[in-house]
């Protein structure tokens, strides 16, 4: 039997008996991502929807000063709440998103035809209140425009005189594209799952084995180090691929619980999506297994390897963060960069875009090339005489 296969079968069988590995690869790793994601998305979507369409509950100070204005705002969806004593403090302390204040002089200005003032207290550094404030401003301005037009008409003038230029907004966003930022984090969960699924095993099979003093006897056998490495990396890949598979299935199931229909969009979370993600992620399975083994080979102990890998785990999140902070046009070179290519391709697929066969091909070829390079570097380290020495 091929000695790599011997190593693979032994590692596979031994680690199936290790509860910690199995738990890590088949439950914690793959299921935490979808769980967090679905919860997060649900909270974000329902919050956005309630802010955009639900009644606007805001404290109003001096409502009696302008009963007509309030009646009109009620029509538009404002639900006036009892006034607060100190509007500045209320906004600063984040008790309310905004406060509408109508000064006592409102009625007098109104009747004399002077501009009547209303005050909106808010904090523009609180980005989450932006939508609420904009809605409130728009409501007041609409009332102002309407009244202005009626005053002109009452004087026999055309209401269009006061608005010489008209802006006609033609928003080209789709519900899909508006939700894009929300979902650009999703590919990171897949990468994270592959990372976590193989991490414990990768550390155990090199740093752990050295610490338990079984690496030296293993290397005394007449088997070239790179063959041993291949067997071990194959075992890591199988475990992390299982993690990934479970994670993808969990996402396709969990996707049904995301209220996407409220956003008027359909996520492409079907079986086809699952297969495509699996294929796109395959180079990363090998790349990450080789990388984790390399780090484990350099570390002096299990703990050291764990520390390094926990830090390394943060790197794959970079493309996700970059793309959600600085959305850029997807360029074809991105499909040649591992991690970035998965990020771009999976996001595209998720939001109903199309990824060509050539792009998938580029992603796979470049991904596997980098993985092979990583494997070659790891094999070199495996061949060094310091690797097996325990103390």
């Amino acid at each position, binding site marked *: 039997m091929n000695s790599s296969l*011997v190593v693979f079968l*032994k590692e596979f069988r031994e680690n199936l*008996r290790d509860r910690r590995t199995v738990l890590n690869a088949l439950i914690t790793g793959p299921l935490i991502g979808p769980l967090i994601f679905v919860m997060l998305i649900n909270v974000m979507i329902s919050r956005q929807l309630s802010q955009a369409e639900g009644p606007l509950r805001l404290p109003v100070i001096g409502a009696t000063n302008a009963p007509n204005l309030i009646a009109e705002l009620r029509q538009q969806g404002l639900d006036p709440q009892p006034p607060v004593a100190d509007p500045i403090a209320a906004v600063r302390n984040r008790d309310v998103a905004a406060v509408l204040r109508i000064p006592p002089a409102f009625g007098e200005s109104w009747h004399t035809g002077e501009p009547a003032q209303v005050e909106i207290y808010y904090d523009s550094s609180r980005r989450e209140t932006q939508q609420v404030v904009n809605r409130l401003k728009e409501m007041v301005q609409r009332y102002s425009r309407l009244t202005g037009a009626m005053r002109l008409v009452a004087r026999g003038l055309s209401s269009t005189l006061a608005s010489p230029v008209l802006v006609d907004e033609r928003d080209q966003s789709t519900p899909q594209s508006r939700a894009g930022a929300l979902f650009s984090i999703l590919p990171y969960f897949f990468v994270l799952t592959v990372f976590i699924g193989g991490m414990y095993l990768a550390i155990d099979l090199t740093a752990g*084995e050295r610490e338990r003093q079984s*690496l030296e*006897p293993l*290397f*005394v056998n007449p088997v070239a180090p790179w063959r041993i490495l291949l067997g071990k990396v194959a075992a890591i890949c199988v475990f992390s691929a299982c993690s990934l598979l479970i994670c993808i299935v969990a996402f396709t199931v969990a996707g049904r619980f995301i209220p996407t229909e409220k956003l008027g969009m359909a996520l492409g979370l079907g079986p086809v999506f699952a297969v495509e993600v699996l294929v796109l992620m395959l180079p990363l399975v090998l790349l990450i297994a080789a990388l984790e083994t390399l780090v484990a080979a350099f570390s002096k102990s299990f703990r050291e390897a764990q520390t390094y890998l926990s830090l390394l785990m943060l790197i794959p999140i970079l493309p996700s963060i970059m793309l959600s902070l600085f959305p850029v046009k997807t360029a074809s070179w991105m499909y040649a960069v591992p991690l970035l290519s998965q990020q771009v391709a999976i996001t595209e697929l998720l939001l109903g875009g199309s990824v060509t066969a050539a792009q998938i091909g580029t992603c796979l070829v470049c991904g596997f090339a980098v993985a092979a390079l990583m494997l070659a570097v790891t094999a070199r380290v495996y061949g060094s*005489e310091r690797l097996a020495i*325990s103390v």
Partner: protein
Amino acid sequence: MIQVENLHKAFGEVRAVDGVSFAARDGEITGLLGPNGAGKTTTLRMLYTLMRPDSGRVLVDGIDSGIDPLAVRKRLGVLPDARGLYKHLTARENIDYFARLQGVPAGVAAHRRDTLIKVLEMGDFVDRRAEGFSQGQRVKTAIARALIHDPKNVILDEPTNGLDVMATRRMRQFMRDLRAEGRCVLFSSHIMQEVAQLCDRIVVIAKGRVVADEPPEALRTQTGESNLEEAFVKIIGSGEGLAA
């Protein structure tokens, strides 16, 4: 037959092995004796090709380990200083794993394994997982897996380390059995009694050099000491790091 010719190995400034030469013959037990830190383990690691010597060479049955390390490993049965087992596997599975890595055909391996289990008296724990094995059980399993391919040459790094009195006696008898089968047995120790009792030839190492390479009687005659312990102390220059 293991021949060692002028081995050198340095770790940075430290010259761990500094010109070691000796030969271990078939049908003999050769003891490598020296205080802790004398370079015994480093020498052995170069013999079983885990480390590459800076200069010098090792011949096992005439094969140069620098040229064909894999062929050399096939002819060696090694109990290294590190003797960790796979704790989720049974003793039998641990042995079988090494048999497959050595490329021993399954039928031959099974027969050889059963013989070793009998000789090493492993019957009562062979199908238990290695987790929680006693030191003696661990060493027995490590020896069985090291000898599963029936090697002509056997290298044992401090084989009685950590064993109790009874286990130590059995281990010594086992080494005599290996010699009786015509094998070349090379073992290291820092225990003088053990070396004196077992060896046909003693190679004394101190500070990375061979300071004596004689049969036990010759050592006594050479130093003029009737007591072997005194003889060693005289050769090495101090009694530091040696155990009686």
